[in-house]
């Protein structure tokens, strides 16, 4: 036990004396959250639009007011012709135009039409704009008006994230990425550095058990990941208004389990890599790309081809992100995420067994 404590102390000396790396580890999560939260956003905010109202009645006026009052849209001006709309689109003054036909009010009983024009040179944005505007218009239309039994009208309600906020999606994603990157890179580099500097040779020719070496390497980074978890969560909660609907304790425990998995992944990498650069490359490229592309953080897993879906099952981040969303956004409890938890636990155990088996007590 004293051996372990002493080793742990040494690891903390390494970490605190290499202040540049430590600060980087603390700052990267903050930078990423802010970047994703403000810069790289596909969210609609204060989009300028024009209105071509050929009907001019109280309903259309209410709809326009409603749109303009939302935080997504700002009215640019009222126009009186399609040509004007076209010119404004070309000048990039507006992103959307809304056209009410002359017979808007008359046809309301049988189903009326509103025309939405968007600039589809950015298809994602155009789709989002249409969705946002449709939601607002429909809400307004159905509010004081019971729709007659003519036809079936789908009433869309977006559960858990009614405003379609990006942060709800990327905060779990960023956690999934940062924890695995920091934990795996730091542990693998920490162990490989001992090999590179030759101190591993001295450690091996000592009565120190390999399991102590491994544990002592992992513990400090587990603590650092706890700090990271708390930073990201508070940034998400206070800055990006992402709610934590489920138990905060469960969120933290789940994240710590995932951090542990990442640490064992780092241990495993350290048994393969011979140099610090190799360890970094393996963790950086071989782990980061699959996480971004296959974890469901950016692209939904359901839409992937079969083979990629199978592959994504092997990505720990996928299970973590799903479970974290369930707890944070949907407010589910521990029983609902048991499948994900068990998958993460099994992955951790497999990696621990593999790393301990592969950990060499000799130089070859």
């Amino acid at each position, binding site marked *: 036990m*004293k*051996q372990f404590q002493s*080793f742990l102390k040494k690891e903390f*000396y*390494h970490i605190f004396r290499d202040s540049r790396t430590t600060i980087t580890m603390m700052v990267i999560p903050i930078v990423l959250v802010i970047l994703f939260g403000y810069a790289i956003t596909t969210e609609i905010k204060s989009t300028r639009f024009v209105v071509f109202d050929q009907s001019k009645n109280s309903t259309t006026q209410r709809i326009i007011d409603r749109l303009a009052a939302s935080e997504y849209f700002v009215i640019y001006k009222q126009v009186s012709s399609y040509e004007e709309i076209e010119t404004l689109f070309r000048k990039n003054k507006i992103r959307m135009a809304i056209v009410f036909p002359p017979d808007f009010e008359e046809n309301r009983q049988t189903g009326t039409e509103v025309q939405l024009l968007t600039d589809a040179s950015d298809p994602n944005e155009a789709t989002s704009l249409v969705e946002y505007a449709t939601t607002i218009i429909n809400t307004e239309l159905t509010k004081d008006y019971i729709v007659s039994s003519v036809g079936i009208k789908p009433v869309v309600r977006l559960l858990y994230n009614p405003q379609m906020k990006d942060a709800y999606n990327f905060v779990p994603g960023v956690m999934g990425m940062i924890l695995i990157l920091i934990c795996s890179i730091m542990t693998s580099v920490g162990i490989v550095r001992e090999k590179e500097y030759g101190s591993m*040779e001295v450690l091996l*020719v000592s*009565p120190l058990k390999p399991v102590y070496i491994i544990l002592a390497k992992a513990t400090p980074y587990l603590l650092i990941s706890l700090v990271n978890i708390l930073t990201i969560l508070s940034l998400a909660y206070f800055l990006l208004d992402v709610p934590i609907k489920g138990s905060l304790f469960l969120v933290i425990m789940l994240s710590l389990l995932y951090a542990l998995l990442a640490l064992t992944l780092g241990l495993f990498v350290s048994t393969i890599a011979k140099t610090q650069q190799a360890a970094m490359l393996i963790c950086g490229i071989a782990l980061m790309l699959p996480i971004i592309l296959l974890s469901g953080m950016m692209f939904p897993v359901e839409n992937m081809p079969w083979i990629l879906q199978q592959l994504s099952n092997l990505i720990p981040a996928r299970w973590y992100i799903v479970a974290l969303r369930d707890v944070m956004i949907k407010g589910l409890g521990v029983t609902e995420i048991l499948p994900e938890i068990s998958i993460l636990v099994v992955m951790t155990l497999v990696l621990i067994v593999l790393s301990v088996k592969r950990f060499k*007590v000799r*130089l070859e």
Partner: protein
Amino acid sequence: MNSVQISHITKSYGNVTAVRDISLSINSGELFALIGPDGAGKTTLFRMLTTLLLPDKGDATVCGLDMRKDWRQIRTISGYMPGRFSLYQDLSVEENLEFFATVFKTTIQENYDLIHDIYVQLEPFSKRRAGKLSGGMKQKLALCCALIHRPRVLFLDEPTTGVDPVSRKEFWDILSRIKEQNITIIVSTPYMDEASRCDRIALMRNGSCLRTDTPEQICASFPHKLWSLKGKELYQLLLDAREYPQTYSCHAFGDCHHFIFKEENDKADDLAAYLRMKGHEDVLIERLEPSVEDCFMDFGEDDQ
């Protein structure tokens, strides 16, 4: 009693045979040196004895413990100082020593008498980071760390390489004092002049062991008469001496050349006349006692 017993040990890396069928027996309490140039296989042999590598063939025991079966015990009774400085550069002198003491389940106080001599020199720098020490100081610290658990056998891989001559001498003085504590010391070095500080030496080259004996015996068994050549134009003198028909060998040794005649007849005057004819004035030819290095060079002549 034999502290380390090596029999027919062989180790290859791919096509390169690093250690070739070496057998040695090192007595308990002996100060034993493996002497040879870079690539002679010294480090590989050390790594096998410290159980860091397994040999392809052959066996060895350290204090009666088998290197294959009892590697865990061997690791508790041996102290190892690798050739490269392998302590933690970002930890202070004191922190390094404390760390290695606890790793070996002991404390600095417990074995302080053993390292006292060395540690007093380090004490003024005890708060300094190990990476900021001079080469000689680093080696002393590494030695302290290897000694802190009072090992029965101490393996030192090239401890004096890259260290200035004064520190080298100091280091050997320290080793002699450690030996008095009845610790077997096995040290490797490329410097032949350090051989005289050892009880016995093994001359190594290309993975083989050429000769094992006391330094005195090795020198005494030198089969030739040795002469030294001195002159003004040393390089030209070497070339001309090698041209001389009666030359068996001539090697440059610092400020003079070591010369051996082909047949054992002392025709030093003839050589002097020949060299004067070649234009070398003030040639000084004297008899010389062979050193370990001469013996090592002579083994080379046999090979070729």
